């Protein structure tokens, strides 16, 4: 697969390394959100924004390296699109982190249990995305990684159903409290959809290279 992807320079290796770093930062951001909620640690929650900025910087570097000539031309848009998708995952995690401060008073009891489950599963999905990305360049089987991501996503879907029911039971103090809480639930539960899309995109890249 390397032969098909590479134009023969080391620029590709730089990009692959940067994408791996991008996903590692994504995992760190997702872990920080989970830990911040679990331990009620505002500093951890705040660190998500810093990690998102780090991710942005890596993404810009990847895109510029790609357009400076890394990879054969036909594969460049695919690589860029995958990186943009990973960036959307960052955005979802950052949104959830920013909204959590205001939503926190309502994240209690079963809602809290379910939110923590979703946050943990989001991290596991990011880790699986990292494994899947590594597989793309090692002739491994991408299908089972993609299936694992879909299994995680189905689990989150089931929890999302419960959360939507529980969301309707809360008594917000104001319209804005209710809206912020609903947006927080949307943000944290939609992260998995984007990871699944990114994983599907890896599969598309894989197939297009055959």
């Amino acid at each position, binding site marked *: 697969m390397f032969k098909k992807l590479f134009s023969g320079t080391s620029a590709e290796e730089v990009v692959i390394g940067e994408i791996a770093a991008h996903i590692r930062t994504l995992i760190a951001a997702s872990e920080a959100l989970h830990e911040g909620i679990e331990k009620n640690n505002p500093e951890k929650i705040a660190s998500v924004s810093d990690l998102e900025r780090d991710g942005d910087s890596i993404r810009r570097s990847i895109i510029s390296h790609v357009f400076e000539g890394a990879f054969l031309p036909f594969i460049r848009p695919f690589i860029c699109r995958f990186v943009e998708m990973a960036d959307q995952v960052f955005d979802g995690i950052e949104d959830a982190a920013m909204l959590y401060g205001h939503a926190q008073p309502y994240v209690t009891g079963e809602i809290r249990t379910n939110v923590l489950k979703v946050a943990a599963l989001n991290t596991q999905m990011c880790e699986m995305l990292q494994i899947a990305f590594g597989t793309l360049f090692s002739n491994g089987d991408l299908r*089972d990684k993609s299936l694992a991501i879909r299994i*995680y996503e189905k689990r989150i879907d089931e929890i999302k159903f*419960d959360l939507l029911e529980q969301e309707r039971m809360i008594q917000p103090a104001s319209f804005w409290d209710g809206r912020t809480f609903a947006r927080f639930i949307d943000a944290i539960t939609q992260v998995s959809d984007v990871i699944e899309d990114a994983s599907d995109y890896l599969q598309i890249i894989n197939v297009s290279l055959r």
Partner: protein
Amino acid sequence: MKVEEIMTTKIEYIDAEATLYDAVEKMIDKRLRSLLVKPKSDKDVHGVITGRDIVFKAIGKNLDLARVKVEEIAEKPLICVNKQMDLTHVISMMQNFNIARVFVCDGTEMVGIVSIMDVMNGALIDRAKGGRGV
């Protein structure tokens, strides 16, 4: 892999004296395939009622779901496992007893359920991570 890595902690209970119709409603509302049946007294034990039980023991026999009580068709006692148990043992138990789920107990407390689908999904995820799958 250990049971606690794949178990579902979402457990819904139903009273032994509730009707099968109540059970069906709860299963549909909560999107579940089984419900834990509460003991009737201190001397009683937990039971389980599944969609399979309702179809084979009531719907298939054309019984009125609103008249049959859960306790009449519930299976007792439950087959419980420890959360530290290895998945290979769970698979053997499911195969030997021809059951689709086992209950995870911590002393007398019910802490989770492991279904065949949980085993399959957990094994596939473990294999994707490079593990053995069970």
